[in-house]
């Protein structure tokens, strides 16, 4: 079994090296794509085998070798495959396999095809390290590793130049990449502090030891640890106020958005909270947990509101990712860790599918992203329409698709906890989710064929790519049906969460209410965006000049605020410091040197060879010496 762990972990790494070392400088080579996809598939098979093993025999724990050993600190490269990590492994490798195969088609015209696969596989490896590590430092390796891969992949088309934010809010791929990296670093500092706190209070960073010793720690320390780790989680999972990087990250190639910025990396924060559930479920940190739930709910609504007006195909899906991450945090914060993990998995499948569908549309439309320039694409892209429709239904929470089971459970949890404000916000957001998802689908595939005006000649994606996407579509449909057995499996490790009698009693109308909101959202979207002829969608200038629309399309002016009040002052202060360095610090040194030099220069006249002048100076010297000794006597 140990070998399987290593195969699952290192197969993607081998792929990355294979592409990076042997093909970095050669032109597009299909072998790279095939080999890398095959290696990820092997990793998937190993993960599934491990999952079966965990179901039957329980967790596997392996220690590969020492990493850092200093003083009292001992960090090994250790990996644990238990209920939580194996779930993540299967989800990650599943989505990765599809995305790898998909990328063979999507990137086929790109001259950096080989480089792309090298980065993509390196990402999968980092993500596996993140979820499989048996200690916080190992998690941090993966954490930073996915960060770098994300940086490389967002900035994959680094040759594009910077433009002003009104042309492209992300400015350029390389700008977006740096923004993502730096914003994540802010959160990483929080995470590091959490690690330091754990080390100095527990003496180890191994999960099992840390969780075992939690009862011995003071409340203040537990709260500090919980907060610091959550700050780390906020960066990776793009929670407010560190959320702006995620939408800008859409500058990366679409398979990257599907894999990294929807299905896997951004859920790392949620994974961290789930993994550290023994900390977050303590009574002492209930305040922090409630804050997580509240922030999650806020982000769910906040992100959904921005998705309502956006015209950018990928950004809409990015906001929806942000919003769904909020749902996951809401569940985790309320103590329903297994529901959060379940939604994480279900979301990974349908959201990756949605993004890949968007990729097909972009491929067809010469990388056009404005959905106002599309419409009526269903005629030429039947398969993609079907996929995106299924994914959106799942996202909107329409039964019997995956999202219905997982999202509904989160909303029910909020009701069950008696946090009715959160509950209502989540219900309302479910309606918004359905609306913006279908606004996007209808604007793209239904209604008038607006694209003709702009001279596009859309065409469907390659057949094998569509076939490769089918597993995600199937999973987006069926995942929810396995909620019961997943529950049984996962609560062997995670705390169980059961609804109270009261909630059970009310479950029928709760479910119906959510459904009603969702269906209403879809119907409004249909009425407004899907029809043809007289009723066809037209841009409404009046709405677009309104305050609310402006607020939403400008992302509540938060990016502008960051630029104006953080980025610019930082640059100005840096310049200021530089001038201080030259004009004050360095100038002082030069001044001292000059004084010494000048003193020497001036006093040179004393040595003029004139005996009487020497005698005079000797007299002055003697007086000074006498005075000095007198002072010394008086003081001493």
């Amino acid at each position, binding site marked *: 079994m140990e070998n399987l762990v290593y195969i699952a972990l290192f197969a993607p790494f081998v792929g990355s090296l294979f592409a990076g070392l042997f093909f970095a400088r050669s032109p597009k080579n299909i072998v790279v794509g095939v080999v890398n996809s095959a290696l990820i598939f092997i990793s998937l098979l190993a993960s599934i085998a491990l999952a079966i093993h965990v179901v039957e025999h329980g967790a596997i724990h392996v220690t590969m070798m020492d990493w850092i050993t200093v*003083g009292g600190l001992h960090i090994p490269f250790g990996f644990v495959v238990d209920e939580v990590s194996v779930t993540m492994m299967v989800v990650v490798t599943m989505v990765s396999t599809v995305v790898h195969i998909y990328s063979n088609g999507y990137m086929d015209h790109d001259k950096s095809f080989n480089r792309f696969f090298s980065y993509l596989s390196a990402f999968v490896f980092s993500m596996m390290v993140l979820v499989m590590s048996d200690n916080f430092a190992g998690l941090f390796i993966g954490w930073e590793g996915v960060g770098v891969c994300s940086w490389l992949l967002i900035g994959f088309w680094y040759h*594009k130049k910077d433009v002003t934010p009104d042309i492209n809010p992300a400015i350029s791929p390389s700008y977006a990449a740096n923004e993502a990296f730096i914003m994540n670093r802010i959160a990483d500092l929080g995470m590091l502090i959490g690690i330091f706190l754990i080390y100095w209070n527990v003496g180890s960073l191994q999960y099992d030891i840390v969780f075992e010793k939690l009862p011995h720690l003071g409340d203040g320390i537990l709260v500090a640890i919980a907060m610091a780790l959550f700050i780390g989680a906020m960066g990776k999972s793009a929670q407010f106020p560190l959320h702006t990087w995620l939408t800008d990250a859409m500058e990366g190639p679409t398979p990257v958005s599907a894999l990294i910025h929807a299905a896997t990396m951004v859920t790392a924060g949620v994974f961290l909270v789930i993994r550290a559930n023994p900390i977050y479920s303590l009574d002492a940190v209930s305040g922090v947990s409630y804050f997580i739930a509240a922030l999650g709910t806020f982000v769910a609504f906040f992100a959904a509101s921005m998705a309502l007006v956006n015209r950018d195909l990928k950004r809409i899906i990015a906001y929806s990712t942000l919003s769904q991450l909020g749902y996951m945090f809401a569940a985790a914060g309320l103590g329903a860790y297994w529901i959060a993990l379940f939604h994480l998995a279900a979301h990974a499948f349908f959201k990756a599918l949605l993004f890949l569908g968007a990729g097909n549309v972009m491929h067809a439309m010469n990388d056009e992203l404005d959905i106002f320039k599309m419409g009526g694409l269903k005629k030429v892209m039947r398969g993609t329409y079907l996929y995106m429709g299924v994914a959106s239904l799942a996202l909107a929470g329409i039964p019997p698709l995956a999202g219905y089971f997982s999202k509904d459970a989160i909303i029910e949890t909020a009701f069950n906890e008696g946090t009715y404000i959160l509950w209502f916000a989540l219900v309302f957001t479910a309606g918004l989710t359905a609306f913006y998802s279908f606004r996007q689908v209808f604007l793209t595939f239904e209604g008038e064929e607006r694209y003709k005006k702009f001279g596009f000649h859309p065409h469907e994606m390659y057949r094998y790519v569509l076939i490769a996407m089918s597993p995600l579509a199937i999973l987006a449909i069926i995942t929810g049906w396995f909620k019961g057995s997943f529950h049984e499996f996962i609560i062997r490790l995670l705390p169980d969460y059961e609804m109270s009698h009261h909630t059970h009693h009310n479950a029928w109308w709760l479910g119906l209410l959510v459904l009603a909101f969702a269906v209403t959202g879809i119907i409004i979207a249909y009425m407004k965006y899907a029809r043809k002829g007289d009723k066809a969608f037209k841009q409404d200038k009046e709405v677009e000049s309104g305050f609310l629309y402006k607020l939403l399309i400008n992302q509540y002016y938060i990016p502008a605020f960051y630029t104006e009040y953080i980025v610019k002052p930082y640059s100005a202060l840096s310049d200021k410091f530089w001038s201080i360095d030259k004009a004050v610090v360095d100038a002082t*040194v030069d001044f001292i040197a000059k004084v010494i030099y000048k003193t020497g220069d001036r006093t040179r006249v004393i040595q003029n060879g004139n005996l009487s002048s020497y005698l005079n100076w000797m007299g002055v010297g003697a007086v000074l010496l006498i005075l000095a000794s007198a002072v010394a006597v008086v003081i001493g």
Partner: protein
Amino acid sequence: MEHILTILIFFPLLAGILGFIVDRDSAKAYGISVAGIEFLLSLWLWFSFDMDNADMQFTEFLPIIKEFGISYNVGVDGISLFIVIMSAMITLIGIISLNEEKIDNIKNMIVSLLFLEMTMIGVFVALDAIMFYIFWELSLVPMLYIIGAWGGPTRVYAAIKFFLYTFAGSLIMLVGLLSIAYLYHLETSVWTFNLLDWYQLDLSVNLQYWLFLALFIGFAFKVPMFPFHTWLPHAHGQAPTIGSVILAAVLLKMGTYGFVRFSLPLFPDASVQMIPMIVVLSIIMIIYTAMVAFAQKDMKQIIAYSSISHMGIIMIGIFAMNSEGLSGAIFQMISHGMVSGALFLLVGIIYERTGTKLMSKFGGLASIMPVYATIFGVMLMASVGLPLTIGFVGEFLVLLGFYKISPMATVIAGTSIIIGAIYMLSLFKKSFFGEVTNESNRGLKDLNAREITALLPLVAIVVWLGIYPKPVLKPIDNSVQKLLIDMKYKARTPEAKKSIISIQRAKEEK
């Protein structure tokens, strides 16, 4: 090979003197051979080093002036071992990277470098204070010459500033060293400059305080600590690539090494008392110079200021007073040596090709020079402390260790992981990403064999020690733990006893 340390010190000197008679055309080959042999010898030192022994090894002792207790006294422990190996390695790589066609008078350059190598290794293995001081001062001479002879337009100003600044500092340090010898004489009526004897000296807290300050000035000028750092950007700005590489990689480490070898064990109480001052200066150093780095337009100045910022991390690690932080600081010295050395080499390569270091003249280099961009990227990631690169281990340990002293200060110093990423990523974006803005750059050649030979070993080490730092960390940790035990034993004040955490105490607690 009992006399391995003597050989390590004097082989480059002899070879350097012989170098004058070598033919100009074979000067570089000669330099590579000598530095190569020296590097192999330093590796031999590592392999025959007893990893479980925390004490001084390969010691040699030969009285020179008996009346004053001045002797030829050398030895190496886990703390100095890797700095010695790094000095030999960086010299070798530096010589390999030299471009014979671009450097006039390459023979003098090789001789200067070999002479410099002697002084560097001498400083790190000296166990006699006078001998330490002599090598310390001698190291200024070849560097002065390298900057003054092969530097940029204002090289004379920069060289003299470098010389006078550090020389002034070391004179005050000399006064401190002489006072310690005098105090030792007062107490035991024996004259000695043997550092190991000095460790036994029990000084009053007040005296420790003044002596600490005297040595502090010498070391702090060298590190260089804020506000004594301004000579460094000038020196880097004017120095030829090889000068910057050795200056950043090795010479700066003399300062931090001095704190570890002298200040901590000689003045444990004063060291603990001085933590607030050191930390304030270090934090200013970390944040302020990182922001100044961000404001720079010249690539090399960014790396120069970033060096100062990283040295600040090393400083707080040294004063963490526990094994995690101090071992981390020493590891970070190695790490910074490798990474800043490589970064200066990389900047030198583009400067040699284009005659400019201004980022505004570049843009889109990644499309033109992919190998160059990749190696630069690896070093960038090491510089910002990415896990599994050499840069993470040291930085992580330092911050972890210092957290025990002051969580608040650690949070502030920890912002270096953010602002470090800001200036490095913006450098990378401006120079390597975007469109090719300068048409004349289109014809730039990617790295040639000579440059790759110089850089690949550094890349390999950056990755190797990031994944498996144990071979280096373990001997360092052994000697550091011994140092901490001695400090704790010697400390007089209760605060110092409390702050210094040796493993023994940790075991007692368990």
